[in-house]
């Protein structure tokens, strides 16, 4: 049957098989129609979105595109060495008295004769913002997560309230927290720390309580049988199981928070983000490239270090989760 031509083989089919074939083909046709319709709808939405974005922008895409390459050309430093002079606050031969080339004035003097280049100092501030807010955020999430998990808390009300608190903490725009605090505490790193901290508690809390909910409950049963209290059950049955995952998630968060504190810096939270948005806004090519290189190196180092630590802590499993959990 398989060797004969298609039409012949169909005619050889029995009545029952024919019905099945017809049914199959009609289903394929319906499915194809659905696919085409959804693709068309999708394209319409995409087209409308693009048109809306283009008309809402201050410059239109195709009008601005040639200027994009002009801008790229204007963003070439006078000499490649200039990038390193800007990075280490060394005097520049191009200096014309303007702040564009006056790198030496940015030096951060530790003693009368010893200085730290400004960008390194700003980078240190940003990194410290990220690390402090991660530590504080992980502590907050750690305290909250046990109250949000079904297997440890019987009261639905507690769980509901804690989960909603976490949701609001992670969905609340960071710049609003930073902005409100900046208005009260004056602009600086503390408002950035608190803003990133709030978001971290919400984001880590969710990941943490999911880990707790997936924990094996047999040790818990054993402790409960021996008459242990809630705190003891959490400490001796749950904690040893979940701690490696907690640490791993916290390390992932550190990477994300390094970026977050840079962004908060750019909207007035201090640190390298602020210097960066200033230098790109003022067309300082060498300074901008110096900061980009520094940020790139930092992000790669933090990523590699935390990936290495995670691998050591919980093995290959650590590479599987978390990518989308920003």
């Amino acid at each position: 049957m398989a060797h004969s031509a298609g039409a012949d083989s169909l005619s050889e089919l029995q009545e029952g098989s024919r019905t099945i074939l017809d049914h199959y083909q009609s289903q394929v046709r319906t499915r194809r129609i659905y696919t085409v319709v959804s693709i068309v709808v999708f394209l319409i939405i995409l087209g409308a979105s693009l048109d809306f974005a283009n008309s809402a922008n201050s410059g239109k895409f195709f009008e601005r595109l040639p200027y994009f390459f002009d801008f790229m050309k204007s963003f070439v430093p006078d000499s490649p060495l200039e990038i390193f002079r800007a990075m280490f606050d060394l005097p520049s031969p191009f200096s014309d008295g303007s702040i564009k080339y006056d790198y030496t004035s940015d030096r951060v003097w530790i003693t009368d004769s010893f200085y730290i280049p400004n960008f390194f100092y700003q980078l240190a501030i940003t990194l410290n913002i990220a690390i402090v807010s991660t530590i504080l955020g992980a502590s907050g999430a750690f305290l909250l997560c046990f109250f949000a998990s079904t297997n440890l808390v019987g009261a639905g009300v507690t769980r509901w309230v804690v989960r909603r608190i976490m949701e609001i903490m992670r969905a609340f725009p960071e710049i609003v927290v930073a902005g409100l605090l900046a208005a009260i505490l004056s602009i600086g790193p503390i408002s950035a720390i608190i803003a990133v901290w709030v978001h971290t508690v919400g984001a880590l809390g969710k990941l943490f309580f999911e880990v707790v909910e997936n924990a094996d409950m047999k040790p818990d049963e054993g402790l409960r049988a021996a008459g242990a209290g809630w705190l003891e059950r959490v400490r001796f049955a749950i904690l040893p199981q979940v701690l490696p995952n907690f640490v791993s998630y916290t390390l992932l968060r550190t990477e994300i928070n390094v970026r977050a504190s840079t962004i908060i810096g750019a909207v007035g939270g201090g640190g390298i983000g602020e210097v960066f948005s200033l230098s790109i806004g003022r067309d300082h090519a060498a300074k901008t490239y110096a900061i980009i290189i520094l940020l790139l190196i930092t992000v790669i180092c933090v990523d590699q270090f935390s990936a290495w630590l995670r691998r050591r802590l919980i093995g290959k499993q650590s590479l599987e989760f978390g990518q989308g959990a920003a």
Partner: protein
Amino acid sequence: MSSVPTINAAERERLLSAYPDVFHRSFMQRWGLLLISAAVFVYLAFCFAFFNVIPTFVNGNWDRAAIYVQDWYSWRAQPRLRFQNDQVVPQWTSRRQYPEGADINWLKPNADSSRYTVTFGSAGNRMEVTPSRVDVYIDGKLYPVTITRDRASLPSDAPAQMEQDDNKVNVYYGFAGQAEIRTNQVYVQRRFLGWANFFFDTHSPFWGRSLPEVVGLMFSGERLDPNQSNASLALDNFLNNASWQHGDILSKLMQTLVMAFVGTLFGTLVAFPLAFIAARNITRSRAANWGTKRLFDFLRSIDMLIWALFFTRAFGPGPLPGIAAIFFTDTGALGKVYAEALENIDDKQREGVRSVGAAPVAVQRYGVIPQVLPVFISQSLYFWESNTRSATVIGAVGAGGIGLKLLESMKTNSDWDKVAYMVLLILLVVFAFDNLSNALRSRVMGKKGH
């Protein structure tokens, strides 16, 4: 003590040799946690000093904080009652909460406007303002403030709610408001719960009407404007509300959503074919694998902020730089995740398709895609969801959308009610899109997602 179990020396020896890992733990196992905790504590203490936490908090404008937070859920009317030729003339700040000549029940003139009565909440808390004297009533008790040419002076028995500040007198009525009595004017701040003129501004014919009245007018009743129906007039007045700018805010919110949607979609579309090149088991060229993977690393490790600032300089502020920034970073991030998913596939299905003599493209289509597609879609949905949040933040550096609007409103330091409104909108949208993406993801993965 019979309840304490005891063991003899031989038994102890046996246990010690049988479980050495329990009794002879390494130095790090024994003290590691304590050492790490101590190090973290020392580090936090260092940062506490480094960031000047205490001076910053001490110097913080905490009295301002209370006002800002009150501004989130309430509004202030701020008339200045100026003294001109023995008359009291009210003057309003630029944000007009009342139309010209409105009859305001807490601010009433007498017949020749030589005296204005300002009520703060109840009849007992009020102020009778005349050019030469302000009678301040607190809980029904009278405290007259006399005004001379160069000084407004407090009565001798004044309570704590009133204070002399140089040559002016401040009166505080708590939440209801406060007043500043100067020699030439009284500056009144009167606070009310809720958001003033949230639906219609004072120029709208719907201003001051109750909700049932507005709804009634919209669907029946005469046309207020002969050119259009009442329903469309109401919508128009609502969107173009001068003080709340609903139309503008909603369009900015739409921009944020479009940025996340288009950026993630383009990222997905570009990362999809590139991931096939980057996967070692699909493309048998080390150079191609390596090149694509480094491209992904480059796109991903340059922060979304840097791309956003870069594209803002090129295309000008608006959603285009936002889309481009999300597109670039997502291509890198999604490409990496996709390539990893491709490298983890089960090879048997491909072999099966190849064994019946299928062409290379068909091998990928029927042997690979069905395995990885759920993972791909699920990851893209994840990114879409988280980009809805990120788009708000990068918007603040000029990449368009509601982020920029938020930053502008915060910088004025007086539009905190608008900030609250936008935050509510963002929270609603983020929750809605989280749930939408969760629902889609669990359908794609065929089980309950989280």
